């Protein structure tokens, strides 16, 4: 069973389409959307419809903080994120909104748990940026593998025999075995708004039979997305972020 892991699409149509086109090369059986289908980007309706279509055909999808904010409360977000949510609400119809707010907090397939931010408190939206946060998530579940997004930078964590979390910065396109002696936490980079210095869309392929993960990147036409962000009148930092990849 090979599962494509896509996180933080953030209403970026060009990046989303580029990743989906690339999946043909990876012989995948399943897609898992790790949350934040909307927010920040200029194409919320398109991306939501595409996600609905995928879920209808059997894809897994969990809710992200931006998806939750569409129908809920966005007051704890920063002003830029909030402005984008306010703008997005007007571009989504009732069906879109129902789909986004109805996504489950977590999903489990065998040994693997899917959640947007952290297994510790799925609605707490904690960022796994260091060993403490990683350790808290790893200890909060009995799943051998947890996969999250939310951070927009790929990282692979594991809990050692001595009980501390250690991070590994994955190399693109290199298959990493998920050794049996450990529990693993994969932070998948963002499809629609990378923040690790590369402008290319990030995703990963999980192979449950081979017990391995491979982190991937695919360049997309981020100039077009950037232009659309500006034309939509969204805050300017959301446009420059796509050009700089951070």
């Amino acid at each position: 069973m090979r599962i494509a892991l896509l996180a933080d699409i953030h209403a970026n149509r060009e990046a989303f389409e580029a990743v989906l086109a690339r999946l043909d090369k990876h012989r995948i059986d399943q897609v898992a959307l790790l949350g934040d289908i909307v927010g920040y980007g200029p194409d919320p309706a398109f991306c939501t419809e595409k996600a609905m279509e995928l879920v209808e055909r059997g894809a897994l999808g969990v809710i992200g903080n931006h998806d939750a904010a569409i129908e809920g409360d966005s007051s704890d977000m920063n002003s830029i994120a909030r402005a984008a949510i306010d703008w997005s609400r007007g571009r989504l119809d009732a069906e879109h909104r129902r789909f986004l707010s109805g996504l489950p907090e977590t999903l489990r397939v065998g040994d693997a748990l899917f959640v947007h931010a952290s297994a510790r408190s799925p609605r707490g939206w904690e960022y796994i940026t260091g060993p403490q946060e990683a350790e808290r998530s790893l200890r909060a579940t009995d799943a051998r593998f947890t996969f999250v997004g939310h951070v927009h930078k790929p990282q692979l964590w594991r809990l050692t025999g001595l009980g501390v979390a250690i991070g590994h910065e994955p190399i693109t396109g290199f298959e990493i075995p998920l050794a049996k002696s450990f529990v693993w936490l994969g932070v998948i980079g963002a499809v629609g708004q990378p923040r690790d210095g590369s402008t290319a869309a990030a995703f990963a392929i999980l192979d449950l039979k081979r017990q391995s993960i491979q982190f991937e990147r695919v360049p997309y036409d981020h100039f077009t997305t950037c232009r659309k962000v500006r034309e939509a009148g969204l805050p300017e930092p959301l446009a420059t972020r796509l050009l700089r990849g951070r």
Partner: protein
Amino acid sequence: MGRMQLQTGTTLDGFVIGKKIHQGGMAEIWEVTKDGIEAPLVMKIPLILDGDDPTMIVGFEQEQMILPRLAGPHVPKIYGLGDFSIQPYIVMERIDGESLLKRFKEAPIPLAEVIDLGAKIATALASLHAQDVIHLDLKPSNIMFRPTKAFSAKVDPGFAPENASERHGGEAVFIDFGLSRHLKLPDLLAEEFRVPMGTAPYIAPEQVLKLREEPRSDQFALGVLLYTLATGERPFGNPKHTTKALIRRLYEAPTPPRLIRKDIPDYLQEIILRCLDVKPERRYPTARQLAFELRHPEQVTLTDRATREKTHWLKNMLAGRLNPYDKAPLSRLESYRHASTAPIMMVAVDLSSEGVPLAEALRDLVSRLLVTSPDSRLACVNVLKTARVGLDTLMEDDGTSIHVKRLVELKNWAAEMRLPPERITFHVLESPDPAEALLTFARNNHVDHLLVGARGSGGVRRYLGSVSTAVVAEAACTVTVVRKQAAEDEAEA
């Protein structure tokens, strides 16, 4: 976790178990066969005692992860891996012959043999490092030699330890990767051990500090091996495997080997003590460069290490205390880039009078390339063409040797680049076939980048084939062909 009772005649995943051929403290080795596989095979099974030592399991898992990702003559080929849920194992090609351990116990051994072994092991390390793997537990019991050579290594005239190389056959093969590190994979052993990982007599200072991403740690272990083979004594004794005992490695300088064995040449002491330098950045930039030095001992640049006759233990200890080892982990990227920023470059220089303008163009380019890779080294090569049949008189009429004359000219050509002596060597090859001589030199010395001049592009040369075309067609490394820009009217014609 379930475990099987293995015995001769049982079958595991299609492998028929033969007889047990080795019982070690960590693992046992069984002969196995499988239908459809011709090669002789062995199965390695970790000894997991009751109470399941997690570190042992992790080490075996790390080995299972690394071995199948390695290729080439310096590692055993892998035929099967056994899962931990039933019976963990690794099935690999059986390497005939014995490990270095037997010969090691007979140390001190002849120096030509020490150098030959060193060159072979350094070459194997270079191959491993090029595949992003650091061994980190190099010791005699982990090193074997293939029975026959894949190709016969040609060494400089005047230095050919023929008997020695026959004794140890062909390429060195590493057989245990339980403590190794793959730089592109998560290090499963990081933070698993409270004491430094490795084998106490061989462990490098940075390993004592638990740094596991420095390829030059393997050079240190090789330095310990060479020291012991040459003198019969271990440079750092056989300390207890505790952090307290091993911390001495951060400032300890061994007794210069020549104080123990008088006939050790200065170049060998230089090489051994450079491998054993506390700071990795003062060892050889790459194992490949170390192998090059061992194959060209007459050109080793000697420093104060070569003639050192005292151990400055007090000075070293104070330096260690006052100027504590830089604990900042080396950046991973730095390690990756290392092999490519420290290439062995080779320049083939034509010293004939018509070749002069071209030789100058070649020197200009080489100078510019050397600036961009400060850890690189340069081998300047000239071929003295000899007749195919019969003996040449390689003497000028006035009795001077043509070989020596060429060497002087070559050094003169290079002088303008003002390279420090440790970065440059000179070689005059004698051969009836210059292209073949250059190719053989490049192959035997694992040259990364070969630069050669081409005299022209037209006419007869195109059909008869020039040295540069043969080199471009057949060299395994990067080749740059340098041309002297023709005058414009000629180019137009």
